[in-house]
């Protein structure tokens, strides 16, 4: 029996929820292609319960994954009345994401070695003064440079008139209406993209929970069509709002 002490790992050591999941899978010697969702969800939540030192923004990322795990678990338990791809395992999106992330992590390890080797070979950032051809202070510019330079110029000018950006308050009701309106206009929303365009963490979180509510109220439905982990949210056709 493990006591709760063993879960007291600083979540900051993990790069994110996927990193934590990979750690659990390895620790429990689980086959990544056949993840026991119920037990891994339990383990995962234990870690969240015993978390220390984590800022809210990071925490929300771990919570989103918890929600996804629970969602998958429920889909595996309940008979699905709508199945887009007949045989699709609800765990598949998670497995794809984990494998992809695992590859990235392995690649990072190789790249880190290359970086360490390369960083020891010093290059010059400018020419020595002996090569005395004037005006060598030239650079190749990127689009980012163009934009950064301009907004810095403006900032220099606006120094004295700092704008106070006030966070808006969002009610759940308002946000739900927002989502429905968006869905009526765009037919569906891309789950990830939608959240990444929210202004603040608070707004993302509220939107997320609104979406969960809308799903449970059977107003909208979340689906994946392909292996490409895109989660789409659609308005249910039979609902009239």
């Amino acid at each position: 029996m493990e006591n709760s002490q063993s879960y007291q790992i600083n979540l900051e050591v993990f790069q994110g929820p996927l990193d934590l999941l990979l750690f659990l899978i390895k620790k429990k010697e689980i086959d990544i292609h056949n993840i026991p969702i119920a037990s891994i969800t339990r383990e995962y939540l234990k870690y969240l319960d015993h978390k220390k030192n984590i800022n809210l923004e990071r925490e929300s990322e771990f919570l989103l994954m918890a929600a996804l795990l629970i969602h998958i678990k429920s889909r595996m338990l309940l008979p699905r009345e709508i199945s887009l791809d007949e045989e699709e395992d609800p765990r598949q999106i998670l497995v794809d994401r984990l494998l992809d992330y695992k590859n990235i992590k392995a690649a990072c390890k190789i790249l880190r070695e290359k970086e360490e080797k390369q960083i020891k070979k010093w290059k010059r950032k400018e020419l020595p003064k002996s090569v005395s051809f004037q005006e060598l202070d030239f650079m190749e510019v990127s689009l980012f440079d163009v934009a950064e330079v301009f907004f810095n110029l403006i900032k220099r000018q606006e120094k004295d008139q700092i704008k106070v950006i006030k966070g808006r308050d969002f009610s759940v009701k308002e946000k739900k209406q927002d989502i429905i309106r968006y869905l009526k206009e765009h037919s569906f929303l891309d789950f990830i993209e939608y959240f990444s365009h929210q202004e603040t963490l608070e707004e993302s979180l509220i939107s997320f929970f609104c979406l969960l509510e809308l799903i449970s109220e059977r107003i909208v439905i979340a689906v994946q069509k392909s292996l490409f982990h895109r989660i789409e949210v659609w308005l249910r056709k039979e609902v009239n709002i």
Partner: protein
Amino acid sequence: MKKNLKNIIEALIFVSIEPLTSDKIKNILDEFPDKEIENALKELLHHYSGNQRGINIQKVSGGYLFATTKEYDEYVKRFLKDEKKQKLSREALETLSTIAYHQPTTLAEISAIRGVDASHCLKTLLEKKLIKIVGRKKSPGKPLIYRTTKNFLAYFGLNSIEDLPSKEEIEKILEDKYEDS
């Protein structure tokens, strides 16, 4: 004459801050036949590879660049002490390799793949010119599209994007039992 050409190329590589491609060399030295330039370049590289020296010509990012040999890192570091040469943070490196393998890509995609918000890593990577903005995606919200740069290749000592760790290399790492988490 040939010896001369070798020296000219050496001088050109020396005054280039970025890796100098052989195409560019041929372009500048357009009075010399390509074949001669190639031979002289080969000779020059041979000259540097042969004897152990304090400086060397590297082949990176499709071109040639002078750099110090890695054995003397300790002393150079001591000399340029105010210059901070930090390695990338773990987050920044993860974001960077996600972009490298999935490019062209957007912030939303990067964040989705990593499972965490990657926006704050972009600054470091853009400032170090390891990635660049190459336009906007034609999809709702028109997000900015990112790609790795030539400097990215040079930073890791890669000659081209095909030199990124291959599937086989990655699998080898994954098989390793001592993989840390």
